[in-house]
């Protein structure tokens, strides 16, 4: 059984067809890249999987369960995590509290009122921050972090509730070359813990860390396959040569 199976997804914005019969399959432990020109539907597909958008047609199944109409909290509790394209850390809270906020999300309300899980989650929060080299910044407000560090914090927050599927929308946007390289190093070992779907424009970054790629163009899947297969694909080359 595949971890994620999206079948025949159609998403319309008025007369614009953003996704036209798109299918995507993600296996456990896979790092799956979604690439394509601007406006090809990559982010829209990610949002349809996370529940930020609901498709007009098609079906999304996660771990064998149909989640097509499930709300975002239901999908998160089922094991789907997402980092959106626009950074949305809480700038006034400390870096530590941002991660704690994400970590405690699946706890019971009474546990939260009585702060029963704060101690146990604090250790996990610190481990998460250590993975992204943010331990020293734990006590600072998130707004004081650089753009790249905020992106890492956001990934740490998406990863904190231990999702089985992590969706990352342009995780390296606005980062320096050094920060992109570090992001790749942070993400690569995560495949042991969860499957990852990455939307990204940086093809070098995608090539380095993804095992499988899906290429979208004008709301349709052009090709799916390994990095070598995609690189050799005449259809993909045509899309990139004529549209990028």
């Amino acid at each position, binding site marked *: 059984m595949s971890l994620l199976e999206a079948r025949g997804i159609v998403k319309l914005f008025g007369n614009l067809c953003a996704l036209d019969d798109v299918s995507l399959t993600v296996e456990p432990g896979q790092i799956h890249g979604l690439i394509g020109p601007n406006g090809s539907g990559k982010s829209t597909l990610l949002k349809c999987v*996370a*529940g*930020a958008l609901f498709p007009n047609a098609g079906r999304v199944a996660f771990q064998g369960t149909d989640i097509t109409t499930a*709300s*975002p*909290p239901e999908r*998160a*509790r089922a094991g789907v*995590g*997402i980092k*959106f394209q626009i950074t*949305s850390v*809480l*700038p*006034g*809270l*400390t870096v*530590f*509290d941002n991660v*704690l*906020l*994400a970590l*405690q*999300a*699946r*706890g019971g*309300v009474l*546990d*939260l*009122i*009585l*702060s029963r*899980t*704060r101690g146990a989650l*604090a*250790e996990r929060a*610190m481990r998460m921050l250590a993975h992204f080299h943010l*331990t*020293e*910044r*734990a*006590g*600072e*407000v998130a*707004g*004081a972090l650089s753009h790249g560090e905020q992106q890492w914090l956001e990934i740490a*927050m*998406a990863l*904190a*509730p231990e999702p089985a599927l992590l969706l990352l929308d342009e995780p390296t946007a606005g980062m320096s070359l050094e920060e992109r390289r570090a992001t790749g190093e942070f993400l690569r070992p995560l495949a042991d813990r969860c499957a990852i779907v990455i939307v990204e424009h940086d093809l070098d970054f995608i090539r380095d860390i993804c095992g499988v790629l899906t290429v979208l163009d004008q709301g349709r899947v052009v090709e799916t396959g390994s990095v070598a297969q995609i690189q050799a694909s005449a259809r993909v080359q045509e899309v990139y040569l004529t549209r990028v």
Partner: protein
Amino acid sequence: MGLRSEGRSSPYRVVPVLEWALLALFAVAPLLVADYIAVFASRLLILAMLAISFDLVFGYAGIMSFGQALFFGAGGYGVALLARDLGISSAFAALPAALLIGLALGWLVSAFLLLGRHPPSVIFVALGTLTASFAAEELARSWYYLGGQNGIPSIPVLTAGGYEFSDIPFYYLVLGLFVLVYAGSRALTRSQFGLALAGIREQEARIGFFGYRVEVFKVIIFAVAGAVAGLAGGLYAFHEGFVWPSILGVVLSTQIVLYCLFGGTGTLVGAILGVIAIEGLSYALSERFPTIWPVLLGVLLLLVILFLPGGIISLLVSERERVGDFGLLRRMARRGGRVPS
């Protein structure tokens, strides 16, 4: 491993000083001032409790409620009816009843406004609570059973066993309950639940994707705030000796918003300062300028809202302290300033 110092400072500095100073002031006030001032101070404490109920929903959860007077007035009318129809004026029955009326009504209103299929807009919730407050006031004004325009008079003195809480004893009862409400609200807003509220206030659309059922948190805090307002209303009924339709209505609801905007939201103590400042100014201005004092007060409020959007508390408390800390810094303090491993 140590932490960098920039952007980090202990968030607990000014607020506790203010809290202890106010507590000390209210504790000794009846010993230092005339009895009528102590009675006025009882009113301040009750209104401060009401302002805290608004701060819980708006300052901490970002829910704009223009109807907190509904829960306040319902608590007041509840104890008035208990006294009139059942002869109950015991603190052990009347005050829990007021609290439960506020809780139940807060839950009902918030469930109706917040548990829809789609997240409600700020305007929808603001108008919904305002309408509920307006409708309740009109109902009380026109329903004979609730005393109509005149309300319910002659509420007896609050009792406990054979003891009667009049004047100064009533003041200290109010102060004791206020301290309990304040401490409970402070604990709640600094708990992990409070962290979730901070998330809702700052990034409501985002945190649902972590797994939070945002609307459940909102209904809980709204119901808790309703309970606080209901208790305040019950105390107010005994303080004034009667209840009347306006204590349910939009004028008082708006006044509560002004208390908090003037004092500053999201600190609890700012709400108290707002009540003291506005009620104190109203008292002082009305003595000196009996005809135009509302205009002067209005201009002052406008100036504060325009030039001090964080309220007067923002002159004393930094934004960092206002937002506060929910775990790490306290743990660090226990470990001698080091990050827990």
